[in-house]
């Protein structure tokens, strides 16, 4: 009889929905159905059962084809590469468990790697701004139970965090928000009329790249100073009306996304959004939160943070100290400058999501990719090591976008003989120890 596994955590986006019901087959090997998940989350679970999944490590041959090798061979090759290379980029981590990250960081310390996570091309700018000015934030539970003004700035949860709006930000009824959607006023600031904007009460169309100016204008309006007629294409009356309305909120929240972190200004956009939040707290309670993308990118920031003091782009190549300098130790810049000797990618796909110039540089270095499936990066790597899917075939700790740790659950067994991230990294770690004890590779 198929059985239902309840309260499953969805390992797709930073919302980490925790109410999925997954139907699994009798033998605990196949997922038959997923309930409560969004389209993307359901696809992630359904992907597990697709035929043709790679089950053993593969090594690229001279003719471009791939040959199956054993886990032991792959582990030995990887450990040798890590020990030989003086500076290895160890990028990814956002789709694996905190436990696996911790082992990875141990390896990085020993071999002098640079540990970076997906925040580097995502909310890295936000983290720079948070390092600069701090962040008045809250949990998603507070948003659900208290927020009566919600601003989506440069983010599109309808597409990127599909259940965010129904679980936390627009529709749910909470303790102090018993009217649900009707009791909230939703603003959306974007350069496009996105599907999120269609759910909002007010849409403010900012000219692409003028977010800094508009945020500045809001600060000006909140302080009661004069505004120019138009800022970033938005008339001053609209800015003033919105600023006045926000002041009358009981609890306001700004959610921001790639519309701020990827456009000109980068960290300065976030910086001023945080400062607007600070200003708003002179009038009412206001908070701000980054819409984190990967389900455990926040966890990677947390683990790196408590181990080394920096949330991403941590350079451990000096062995005795951790360094972090954006523009210098960040993955794309390292690749642009051809500064690393080898690449180790885990639980991510820079091949699809890094600019092509960075990947051209990466493709010329010895590369190991650890990922459950074939993706763009595995196809330009020397070795692809498949592993069990964290959150589906093995559990582990993850952090939601509001920095709340949630233990993900195992739903089905991984394919026979397949290692998990933790097991694989532990074996690589042991092999690195052996090689270092022998005095290097």
């Amino acid at each position, binding site marked *: 009889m198929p059985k239902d596994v309840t309260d499953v955590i969805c390992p797709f986006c930073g919302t980490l929905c925790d109410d999925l019901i997954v139907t699994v087959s009798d033998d605990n090997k196949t997922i038959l159905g997923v309930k409560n998940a969004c389209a993307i989350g359901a696809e992630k679970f359904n992907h597990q059962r697709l035929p043709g999944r790679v089950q053993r490590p593969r090594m690229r041959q001279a003719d471009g084809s791939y040959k199956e090798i054993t886990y032991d061979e792959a582990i030995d090759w990887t450990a040798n590469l890590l020990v030989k290379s003086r500076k290895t980029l160890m990028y990814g981590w956002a789709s694996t468990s905190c436990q696996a990250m911790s082992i990875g960081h141990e390896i990085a310390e020993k071999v002098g790697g640079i540990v970076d996570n997906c925040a580097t091309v995502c909310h890295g700018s936000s983290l*720079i701004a948070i390092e600069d000015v701090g962040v008045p934030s809250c949990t998603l539970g507070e948003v659900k139970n208290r927020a009566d003004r919600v601003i989506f700035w440069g983010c599109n949860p309808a597409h990127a965090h599909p259940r965010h709006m129904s679980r936390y930000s627009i529709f749910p009824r909470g303790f102090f928000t018993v009217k649900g959607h009707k009791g909230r006023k939703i603003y959306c600031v974007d350069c*496009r*009329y996105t599907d999120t904007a269609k759910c909002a009460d007010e849409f403010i169309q900012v000219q692409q790249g003028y977010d800094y100016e508009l945020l500045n204008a809001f600060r000006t309006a909140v302080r009661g100073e004069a505004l120019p007629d138009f800022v970033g294409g938005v008339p001053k009356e609209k800015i003033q009306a919105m600023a006045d309305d926000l002041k009358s909120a009981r609890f306001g929240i700004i959610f921001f996304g790639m519309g701020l972190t*990827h456009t000109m200004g980068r960290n300065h956009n976030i910086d001023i959004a945080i400062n607007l939040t600070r200003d708003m707290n002179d009038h009412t309670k206001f908070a701000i939160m980054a819409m984190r993308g990967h389900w455990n990118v926040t966890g990677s920031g947390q683990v790196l943070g408590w181990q080394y003091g920096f949330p991403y782009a941590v350079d451990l190549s000096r062995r005795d100290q951790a360094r972090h300098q954006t523009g210098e130790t960040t993955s*794309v810049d390292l690749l642009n400058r051809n500064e690393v000797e080898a690449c180790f990618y885990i639980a991510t796909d820079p091949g699809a999501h890094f600019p092509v110039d960075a990947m051209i540089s990466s493709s010329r270095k010895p590369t190991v990719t650890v990922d459950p499936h*074939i993706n*763009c990066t595995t196809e330009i790597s020397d070795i692809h090591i498949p592993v069990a899917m964290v959150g589906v075939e093995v559990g582990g700790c993850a952090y939601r976008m509001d920095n709340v740790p949630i233990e993900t659950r195992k739903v089905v067994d991984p394919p026979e003989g397949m290692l998990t991230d933790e097991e694989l990294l532990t074996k690589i770690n042991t092999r690195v120890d052996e090689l270092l004890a022998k005095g290097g590779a």
Partner: protein
Amino acid sequence: MEKKITLNMITCRTIQQGVGMEAGKTSQKYFDACTIMHMHPEDMKKLGVWKNTNVKVTSSVGSVIVKAVETREDLVPGLAHIPMGPWANRIVPAYTYSTGEPCFKGFPVDVEVAASARIMGAVEVLQDACGLIRK
């Protein structure tokens, strides 16, 4: 003479791209979701391109063939959008202004009609750029 227009390009996630990504980077779903460029109808008129026709998009770092579609999420004229993925990233400038973040949104591109040009596959478009395809 072939017409060419300059647009401001942004790359973003779409839910179709997310679903395609989880279905597999080599899947048809991913290909369909990411090999399109959303354009405003006015820009399509200006360029003289029919809906669902292939176009060549060129930025300061390279060019890529994608299919021009009319936007569903309203863009303003002059703004274009390719969902994130290896195709979009063929034209994303890698310069980060010392922030670590490449210029994923807001870079100028030239667009021209390339109706008969072929759109490459997800792995192919990357391997081609990296010089890994043996001709």
